[in-house]
């Protein structure tokens, strides 16, 4: 399923943990499962490496959506990393929502190394959601817009 977004192309940053989700993304590739090219992946050792600063930075620089993928809770390569991620991101997303920033622009999804199909489906769904929301206006830095 390729999302039909002929006009607005969202910029999506996906942080993927090296051990599960990045491998899941690789598996999606190996299985030739399509998802929009708007998704660009940044490899991090563990989802717990992702600092809220990175997420805000992405929005500042023009991202329209940021998704964070990690191992399923309990399966973290580092045993506990994603549990911290879960708390941190829950609070961060809740704060963004509190400030009136569309909460659908941020997401956490647990994708294992075996879930190539889930990875592709997740990305398709996320791109579709963000495309519907349109451009990120509430957390943008006008200086970073291309003039």
């Amino acid at each position, binding site marked *: 399923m390729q999302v039909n977004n002929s006009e607005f192309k969202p910029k999506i940053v996906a942080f993927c943990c090296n051990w599960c989700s990045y491998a899941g993304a690789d598996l999606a590739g190996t299985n030739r499962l399509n998802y929009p090219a708007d998704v660009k992946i940044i490899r991090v050792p563990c989802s717990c490496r992702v600092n809220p600063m990175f997420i805000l930075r992405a929005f500042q*620089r*023009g991202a329209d959506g940021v998704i964070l993928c990690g191992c399923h809770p309990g399966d973290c390569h580092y045993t506990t990393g994603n549990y911290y991620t879960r708390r941190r991101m829950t609070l961060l997303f809740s704060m963004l929502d509190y400030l009136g920033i569309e909460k659908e622009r941020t997401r956490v999804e647990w994708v294992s190394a075996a879930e190539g199909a889930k990875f592709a489906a997740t990305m398709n769904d996320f791109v579709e959601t963000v495309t519907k929301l349109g451009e990120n206006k509430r957390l943008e830095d006008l*200086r*970073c817009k*291309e*003039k």
Partner: protein
Amino acid sequence: MLKLPIAKLDEFFAAIAAKETLYLPVDNEGGQAQYKEWKEGVSLSRALNTVRSAKDFFFPQTENLMEFKTQGKAIEVIDSRKESEDFVIFGVRACDARSFTILDKVFLVDPVDTYYKTRREHGTIISLACTRPEETCFCPLFGIDATEPEGDMRGWMTEDALYLEPVTEKGTALAQALGDLLEDADAAPVEEQKENTKKILEKLPFSKLDMEEFNGDNLLKLFDSPKWAGLSEACLGCGTCTFVCPTCQCYDIRDFNTGHGIQRFRCWDSCMYSDFTRMAHGNPRLTQLERFRQRFMHKLVYFPSNNDGEYGCVGCGRCLSKCPISMNIVKVIKTLGEDK
């Protein structure tokens, strides 16, 4: 003396706004006054003064200077200055009106700060006499008459009318442009108001502080005073006093990578900050005591020494009411002044 019935105030604002952008003090969500652009429905704040001073109009908190774009090894420099438009600031109090003179002494002397100069040239100031000064006001200490503020045009607001008096060419031109909206008037009500206000100004607790001690001759004595330690010990090192001050003029120049180029901008800096004037070798003032001392020595000693005795303070009282720990220039003057 010109007069505008108070009922016609909106009409007056509209007439100015039709020509130029008009800014005036407006109550904000925080329950305080702030300069905002006048639009239909916006009303003048009743507050004595704004939290941020009027210096923002000529020396904004941030200002883009230029942009660099690189293509391969070529660098293109783009001037970020926008075409300046004329604007009018209404409701500037005497203290802020005087602050422009002080800022001019910094920015308009050689080398002239052209960014500042351009804004100055495009701005017309309509000042407004005070009628209800606060306990924190001490402008009389610096020879400022709050009943007769400086500006391109000065005004007095009574219960039923706004009295105006053009002072400069710019002010006269503006008055003429407004034409028949303003009528000639007798100055008596203004004089009466001035008298009343002066009585209150007399009572202000800090309007007669002893400033004798603060001159260049005492520089080292003041600098070495052991009292700075006690004065500065509670200082949080925040920039509140600096940023609400109408005469603080220090700025930092920074580069911001926009992803498409480098935006060079300047922004207010505060001598209270630990990285103020940091250089390659490090910071010249390592402790908060030194930083605190710098701010007051500058306003009370260095600046007057270089500017014919004019202090770098206009007595607006903003720092008195806004300092988180209630340490301020008045306490400094009183404490150090004792050592005569």
